[in-house]
């Protein structure tokens, strides 16, 4: 084989290598963005970050496990820049796995303008989030309240019987966040598919 052939073979090889690496490169860039929904799916499956499902789930018809009692705590938090108040009618309930429960939350806008906000839920221990089924929740979409307006909204939920036996206390925290116009767009787009209840 003459050297010239080797040279052109080398050139051909370089082109092939570059094409392949570029494909891998593009693939990895797409993969990085794909990791975002993948992470959500992974969290849904494993309860990794203690987020609850953003959609209403049907009640699982099952017998109440009267042999176990679990404490469920409710914590509400405000956040800066939002003159709203969120209150829960009971801070703590004790229930049996499988039982359906209803708790009422009250929103109030103390500001002097109409504003929108969203209550972001978080569950601890995170493993419990897999077994917490919300039939109705105000957290599925954002709320809009006029100045001084009040809104009472129920949370209907169930802890399924397959809740790991060592979990004795489940804490459910709602943090109110203001929804600015841009994030509202995004949030709305995200929640359009949920034909839900509130």
């Amino acid at each position: 084989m003459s050297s010239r052939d080797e040279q052109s073979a080398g050139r051909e090889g370089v082109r092939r290598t570059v094409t392949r690496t570029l494909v891998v490169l593009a693939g990895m860039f797409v993969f990085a963005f794909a990791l975002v929904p993948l992470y959500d799916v992974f969290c849904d499956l494993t309860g990794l970050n203690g987020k609850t499902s953003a959609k209403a789930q049907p009640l699982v018809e099952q017998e109440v496990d009267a042999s176990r009692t679990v404490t469920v705590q409710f914590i509400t938090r405000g956040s800066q820049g939002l003159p709203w108040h969120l209150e829960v009618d009971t801070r703590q309930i004790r229930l049996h796995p499988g039982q359906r429960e209803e708790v009422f939350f009250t929103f109030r806008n103390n500001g002097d303008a109409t504003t929108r906000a969203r209550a972001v839920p978080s569950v601890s221990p995170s493993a419990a989030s897999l077994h917490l089924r919300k039939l109705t929740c105000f957290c599925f979409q954002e709320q809009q309240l006029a100045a001084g307006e009040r809104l009472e909204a129920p949370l209907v939920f169930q802890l399924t019987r397959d809740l790991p036996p060592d979990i004795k206390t489940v804490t459910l925290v709602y943090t109110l966040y203001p929804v600015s116009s841009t994030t509202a767009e995004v949030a709305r787009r995200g929640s359009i598919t949920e034909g839900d209840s509130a």
Partner: protein
Amino acid sequence: MRRLLMWMAVGVTLAALTPMVLANGWNMPEGVTAVSRDIYSLHMIIFWICVVIGVIVFGAMFYSLFRYRHSRGAKAATFHEHTSVEVIWTAIPLLILVAMAVPATATLKTMYDPSEADLDVMVTGQQWRWRYDYLGEDVAFTSNLSTSREQISGTSEKGENYLLEVDEPLVLPVGQKVRLLLTSDDVIHSWWVPELAVKQDAVPGFVNENWVRIDEPGIYRGQCAELCGRNHGFMPVVVEAVEPERFDEWMAQRKEAAQQEAMSADREWGLDELMARGEQTYGAVCAACHQPDGSGSPPAFPALAGNQTLLDEPDRHISTVIDGVAGSAMPAFRNTLSPVEIAAVITYERNAWGNEAGDTVQPSEIAERLAAQDE
């Protein structure tokens, strides 16, 4: 030869340092909980494993360096692989690692014990202080750095607990399991007390859980461990562990004091009174960002001295303090400060450093505003 002596000197120095590692203040504290002692022993086991491996490997290396020096006329051998030796030195570390993983797994499992707690405390990180809510007790307060600015700038002598002291420590009963729920109002913080071996991130919008059962009464100090902005180095954690009876007493006192504070909101306060109280509150919670002289550090932290918006719009001033500003370091103080404190600090800001609003904001006014919200 000289090189060799130098190497030996390095070796001897390292060897001499080893016992010092065990001395107090040089090593991880053993701590005052069962978990912290477990962690300490894991730490020491893995440390000694490393020391032993290090002695063997470096021993072999320095032996070779000494024994097979070119200057000594060493002739190089030609071997360059030996499968069984390679298998052995792959397998042995693997076994050591497995042996190490067993106790580590056990410790980790005890740390994840979700059994019921005697007391639940919610810990909220905030730029740059901690807030503690005793769940179900209606007792909540913030814990601010109490080291004076003079000590930090060096104009006065630094105290014993420099940067590790707060105005109000977290008080916990000994012998009881305390569950800590951690979250944050702004950026990620991390709550850490070495003696309790609790370090857990406080993530905005999410709750983390940890627990502690303290064996001995005492004061345990730690710091925020996650970079959280300007004053990351100035948000200490102080835990005061007391006997359960003392804890109950403290809780009762706390509640009474809160009641009195609430009562005092009803009366009319004078400008001087409010200014005095306001200066105190300002120093504890506001001065870190807005500076003691109200000059702030723009653009992140606006100046308050000579701030026209502040002077012209008292209502906006009040709502900013109560509700905070979204997406900034300005937190909402509605739950953090009492009506008296909020009124005092606003009055102070409106009348200090050359600001001459002349008006007072009465605690009753603030209390009313907050009550409307709580109803």
